């Protein structure tokens, strides 16, 4: 009772801070009171599959967290009609559970729906979820995208348990993947973020991840919510925020993720603008935390830290190489202003090579990325254009990777990944020098 009163007495202060929460939502949250677990549904792209996610959450809480107080925050902003259908399905499920006492939770699982006339962006949905987590004093939280067809009750438990039971602040998922899937994550996002922020999280961009109430409060207080990068894809920013020395990160192996090896929903340029643009923005905005630090620590992993499959795929290597060649040739003046002259000369000579002789070595790839990140910092050209200009070079790297690892085992690929991480770490002084040197010239 006391805690509820204390909670209610804090509401006016929080109201001032969290003015973006609607009255209706605040009323719903006040009705819930404090909770142990919070599960947020964030993406608005898959409103139709929300009921599947709701079912998985209910099952997960009933199976793994019987005694804990849990709430589901549905921030999809979906229409009332479809939400009512989902609620009806949940009622049926609850009735089913009564017939299977082993599955029944000891406490009610609350559901809070966020009403909005327009579907919220991923960033504003996360903002709402974090504010709710802070208001409800949730100890462990999970954000899910209902679009994930593989979402199982076990996945949710594997993301919640490390935060709830082992006091981890951020729980990143690890999936079993095809060896040629997620090459941007493998060759750029993971090793670069690991070398710069000193903490290696393999899946910076995932559909689901777990975190503590402490991290939620820290992220909520950051003045970033109007940033375009955060509005579009906030997950990498949250993961990078958790890489600070104050927080404990871990990775949890979830299992295979159904995603086609070839092809993707959005085009590659859009993926780059969001994923790479976001990483570069994080490097820029958090420079005070990494510039003078040489911290490097391994992230604890629950389960295997990599699992690769190698079924046959149809990839057009020749076309990828053609796109690399034409891209580098057409964008030569632009690349000249972004890259260091030595790096640019090496890339130009590589373009002239025959397909069979071409290799984009780790040393050149790492130097290219560091040049791009430093030029992004110095705004050598429009930053959005700069990120897009990296696409042809990524294609060159992808082609080289596909050739080099065509017949490699998972262990060999993992060794290659470690070598790349080592190269990023080795060239880090070059990066910091470029980062600082240009500042001096400019000032």
């Amino acid at each position: 009772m006391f805690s509820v009163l204390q909670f209610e007495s804090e509401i006016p202060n929080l109201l001032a801070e969290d003015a973006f929460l609607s009255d209706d939502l605040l009323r719903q949250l006040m009705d819930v009171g404090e909770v142990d677990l919070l599960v947020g549904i964030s993406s608005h792209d898959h409103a139709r599959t929300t009921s599947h996610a709701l079912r998985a959450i209910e099952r997960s809480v009933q199976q793994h967290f019987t005694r804990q107080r849990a709430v589901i925050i549905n921030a999809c902003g979906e229409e009332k009609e479809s939400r009512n259908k989902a609620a009806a399905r949940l009622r049926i499920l609850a009735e089913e559970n009564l017939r299977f006492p082993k599955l029944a939770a000891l406490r009610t699982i609350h559901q809070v729906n966020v009403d909005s006339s327009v579907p919220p962006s991923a960033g504003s949905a996360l903002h709402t979820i974090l504010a709710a987590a802070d208001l409800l004093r949730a100890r462990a939280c999970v954000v899910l995208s209902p679009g994930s067809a593989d979402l199982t009750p076990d996945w949710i438990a594997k993301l919640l348990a490390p935060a709830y039971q082992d006091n981890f602040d951020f729980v990143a998922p690890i999936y079993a993947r095809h060896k040629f899937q997620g090459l941007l994550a493998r060759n750029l996002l993971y090793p670069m973020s690991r070398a710069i922020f000193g903490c290696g999280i393999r899946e910076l961009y995932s559909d689901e991840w777990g975190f503590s109430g402490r991290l939620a409060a820290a992220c909520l207080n950051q003045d970033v919510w109007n940033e375009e990068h955060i509005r579009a894809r906030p997950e990498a920013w949250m993961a990078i925020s958790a890489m600070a020395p104050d927080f404990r990160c871990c990775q949890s192996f979830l299992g295979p993720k159904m995603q086609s090896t070839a092809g993707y929903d959005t085009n590659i340029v859009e993926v780059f603008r969001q994923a790479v643009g976001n990483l570069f923005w994080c490097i820029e905005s958090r420079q005070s935390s990494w510039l003078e630090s040489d911290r490097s620590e391994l992230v604890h992993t629950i389960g295997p830290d990599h699992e690769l499959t190698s079924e046959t795929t149809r990839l057009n290597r020749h076309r990828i190489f053609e796109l690399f060649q034409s891209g580098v040739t057409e964008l030569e003046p632009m690349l000249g202003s972004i890259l260091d002259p030595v790096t640019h000369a090496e890339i130009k000579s590589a373009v002239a090579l025959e397909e069979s002789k071409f290799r984009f070595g780790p040393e050149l790839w790492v130097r290219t990325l560091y040049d791009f990140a430093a030029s992004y910092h110095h705004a050598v050209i429009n930053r959005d254009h700069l990120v897009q200009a990296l696409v042809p070079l990524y294609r060159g790297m992808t082609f080289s990777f596909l050739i080099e690892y065509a017949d490699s085992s998972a262990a060999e690929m993992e060794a290659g990944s470690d070598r790349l991480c080592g190269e990023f770490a080795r060239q880090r002084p070059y990066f910091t020098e470029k980062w600082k040197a240009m500042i001096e010239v400019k000032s």
Partner: protein
Amino acid sequence: MKEAILRGLEQAYSNIHQMLADFLPRFMVMLIILALGLLVAFALRYILQAILSFTNLSRGSEKVGASSVLRSAHLPAMTVLLSRSLFWLTWFCFILIGLSSLGLAGFREEVFRILHYLPQLFAGILIVFVGLIAANFLSRTALLAAVNAGHSSARILSWLIRSLIWILTISMTLEELGVAGKTVVSAFSIVFGALMLGLAIAFGLGGQDMARRSLEKYLGDTKKEAEREPNPL
């Protein structure tokens, strides 16, 4: 005769004396105004330069592509350019004021005409500058989009967009400056209209099949393109 000449010379001398007596003080006033103007212009230049270096204008100008436009035109950096422009503008105004203080017949009207024309001139310069930035930005956007989508004629597309914006900018500037305004607008309308009509006819009638094939190829290719590359995330 001799007396008349002497009287004439005396008269001429007194006229020159009178003119000099009238002119020299005005000339001195002009010199003082010019010197004062020079000082004020220098002061304003350094103040503006200091303010601009605090506001990170260079970075902003790099971001929007203004710096690359300046570089390609062999002009100095944005901060230097603005402060120098302010210097010359201030001093030019002082020069005009100084010259008008000489009281030369008809000169005052000319000075006022020039001063009245200045806003148009600056509007013209601004249009050219914005036009160049827009041309640079949009042509680069088109180039990147076309290159990353794997189109073979990326540079032509980029060049076309740049040229169109340049034509539009030049015609707008000439109209603003009042240089053969009607002729420029008519010429632009005719050229632009003809170009669009030509493209519409060529693509809509002459190249119906080609248009359909291109669209089918483009729409089909976007999907196929995605199937050829591994999923990046």
